[in-house]
């Protein structure tokens, strides 16, 4: 049977000597993130391989204002990566290769501090990654309001795979504490993969946080939502291990 190393190289384009937590699972810090409740954190190599033999998509995580990110901020991002795998697993959607990218404060030209939805659109057009992954921009000082509410993230519903298309070409999220950031991260990528809001279902991931029963536990996805996600242009299918 094909080794995990050969399979990771062939299916995910990983280097031959890839690190399991850094390259294979995509944790920027190369170690497991901490859970804000103190609960133990585990990942399963077997489960991840199984998931990637079905529908999956690749992801680029772009830190905007990267020189301002602290280790705690990066833990929020890594915790989001842990959570998105577990949450999307319910509908058998895997998250494959995750690569991390940096846009410094100087390069961000003010967009490390987005204050309008226009800034969020501009952020997704400022930089893009020339691969098949969805670009997720994490801005360090996200400060967008909408009347009495805070905008925690924004993404196009059914986002494009052509990164030079008009409009917004990536998803965006801010840092608001591990629990909130991870939910918004997963919620916004849900939009990008074609899901709309489910504000009448307060336990669903796609219910906005302001209407959800719980930031930690309102993460359900239905089979129908899973089917929608699997139809997105970024999905790849069945990277099987050779027997």
């Amino acid at each position, binding site marked *: 049977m094909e080794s995990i190393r050969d399979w990771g190289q062939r299916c995910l384009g990983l280097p031959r000597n890839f690190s399991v937590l850094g390259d294979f699972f995509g944790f920027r810090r190369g170690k497991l993130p901490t859970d804000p409740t103190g609960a133990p954190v585990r990942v399963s190599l077997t489960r991840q391989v199984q998931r990637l033999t079905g529908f999956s998509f690749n992801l680029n995580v772009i830190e905007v204002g990267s020189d301002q990110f602290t280790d705690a901020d990066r833990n929020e991002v890594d915790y989001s990566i842990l959570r998105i795998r577990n949450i999307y697993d319910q509908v058998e959607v895997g998250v494959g290769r995750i690569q991390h990218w940096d846009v410094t404060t100087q390069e961000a030209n003010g967009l490390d*501090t987005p204050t309008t939805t226009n800034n*969020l659109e501009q952020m997704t057009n400022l930089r893009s990654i020339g691969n098949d992954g969805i670009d997720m921009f994490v801005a360090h000082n996200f400060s967008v309001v909408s009347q009495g509410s805070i905008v925690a993230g924004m993404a196009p519903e059914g986002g494009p795979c052509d990164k030079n298309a008009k409009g917004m070409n990536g998803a965006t999220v801010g840092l*608001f504490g591990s629990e909130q950031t991870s939910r918004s991260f997963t919620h916004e990528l849900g939009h990008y993969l074609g899901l709309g809001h489910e504000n009448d279902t307060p336990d669903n991931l796609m219910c906005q946080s302001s209407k959800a029963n719980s930031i930690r536990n309102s993460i359900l996805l239905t089979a129908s939502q899973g089917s929608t996600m699997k139809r997105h242009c970024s999905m790849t299918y069945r990277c099987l291990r050779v027997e």
Partner: protein
Amino acid sequence: MNNDSDLISADPYSVDDLRAMVFDNQGPLARPLALALLGRKSYDAKVPDLERLLMDDSEAPRLRSEAARLLGEMKDPAAEDALERGAEVSDELALRGVIEGLSSLGSVRAMQRIEALRQRRGPVGEAAQAAALVLAHRYGKSGVEPLSVATRNRLSLDHDRAIPIEVRPARAKDVASALAALAPAVAPLSLAADGALSFVCEGRRFLLLFAEHLASDGIESIASHPTQAGVVCARQQLEGRAWEIWYHILTEPQEDGVVDILVTTSQYRAELAGKARISTDQAEFELWTVEGPGVLAVEVRGVYDGKTVAISDARSDLRRQPSPEPSPAKR
């Protein structure tokens, strides 16, 4: 294509709860989120609370910067005093927040404070320079920095694949709600309801609101001094449907009846540039996209007759320019 967002409401939290989370780190929310939500509340001690955060050198720069922005939103003399004191802090991110706060206030005093920060290097100086440019035009003041249209590279529009942008008179209802929402944000500029235009670009409906002085002062309003001629705004595609300013339209007279035009984003990045040529009773103008990563080629032509602006032709490309890749992260 619609954009969707995740929203967090301030309603479930009391001011006392949020203050405890911000200042004592006690409660379920992370401090940046608690502060952002506290900013949505009105209460007596808001200015001293925000100033305390802004001035505290041991605080996280992100919180200090957010506190400064929230002070600017308040449009309050005490908040302006606090921001003036905040202009003395040394942290760069906090100072950028102060510049944004002062820019939101838009007063002469705020403009002078911003101008004093223009000499700084890096993102602080750049933010101050850009904010000062818009405020100076709003006050009809020259000397901050020329719009330098001649030095900006034009992105050519491929006419074979360009599509027309439909421009029409704006709906009175939209204009009224946009003016009500945005008037404080552009003070002392007064925006006019008359002559507003509406157009759809990238699937989004925009409003073009012109300054009142364009109708009242005629061609002289752009021929004699730098000015802000108007704004382009759009409604958020979110539940709140709040109006946002997307672009500022700045003009500056040159020699021989030519007026430079620059359209900047809300963070003052040049998006469109162009020129108007003044004849006896009208000015014909042309605008085009300034070259840059990820920009969309657009061309706009029209006439300003001393009262209103009419667009004769507006076109855009179907695809954006490529954007550069960022640097791979170092572990």
